[in-house]
């Protein structure tokens, strides 16, 4: 029961359902996000005001859903910006991948060079007498 109540966004199970309380969680119940606690569901079924509110809520959601199929024609060709590769579209992942790999190769080469220099310096120091 507590899970049901939590899903309905209420702190505890209401003993008596009122129109105000029912309408507070009505939209959630109608959009399928929550389950109404049984006491509120019973109230809704028996209350004319809440039934009208439910019908209104359903109409609103249906109209919002119907908006999905309405498409606005573009005022002009929106793909025009993609025609100028150097300005906007040139940064394609494949191009970026090659530049990234080039950067990685440079970094690795630098690290290897530094390590080699370090080895040479260490070797020279080891060869020289430890106590001067």
């Amino acid at each position: 029961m507590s899970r049901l109540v939590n899903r309905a966004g209420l702190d505890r199970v209401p003993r008596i359902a009122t129109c105000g309380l029912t309408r507070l969680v009505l939209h959630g119940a109608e959009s399928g996000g929550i389950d109404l606690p049984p006491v509120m569901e019973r109230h809704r079924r028996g209350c004319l005001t809440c039934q009208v509110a439910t019908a209104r809520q359903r109409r609103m959601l249906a109209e919002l859903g119907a908006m999905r199929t309405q498409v606005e024609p573009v005022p002009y060709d929106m793909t025009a910006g993609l025609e100028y590769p150097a300005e906007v579209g040139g940064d394609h992942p494949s191009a970026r991948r090659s530049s990234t790999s080039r950067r990685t190769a440079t970094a690795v080469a630098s690290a290897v060079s530094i390590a080699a220099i370090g080895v040479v310096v260490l070797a020279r120091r080891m060869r020289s007498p430890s106590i001067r």
Partner: protein
Amino acid sequence: MGPDVNELVDRSRDGDREAFGELARLHQHEVYTLAVRLVGDRTLAADVTQEALIRAWRAIGRFRGDSSFSTWLYRITANVAWTLKGRAARQRTYQLDAMIVQPQASDRGNPEVAGERTELRARLGAALAELARSQRTVVILKDVYGWSHKEISEALSISVTASKVRLHRAHLRLRELLKESS
């Protein structure tokens, strides 16, 4: 027969600009429609659409195909709209007419029903335009486009709880606004 979207996506991933141009042409109306609904301004929506297409081109290599190409593109659009609208909020005036929807062909059979629906849609459009940007975005993505709270939270970089709370508040506000206008 139209071009195969999956094939176009594969070619785009390999850097074929023409294939991506074709994909963009196929989806530009839907992207623009979503942008108009999210930002409520046709001029800004055009900017959002172009920016979304450019970002999609740059990111197509990372598109793994977990969702459909259109869903992925809408997610980018929602993200761009969220960013650009935030930037433009203080610079532009809001166009209420962008939200007002035209009667559909299916309504023409019954003039009475069509009249009622047109009126409700007009009121709903005006009410949506009155909502705060954060609330309107969630209502449109959830109730119009049927996204899950998880998808909304990912697109807008908010928590799932925040998405649910915004939707709850938006519904309460919408109900108030519809009541006022009736």
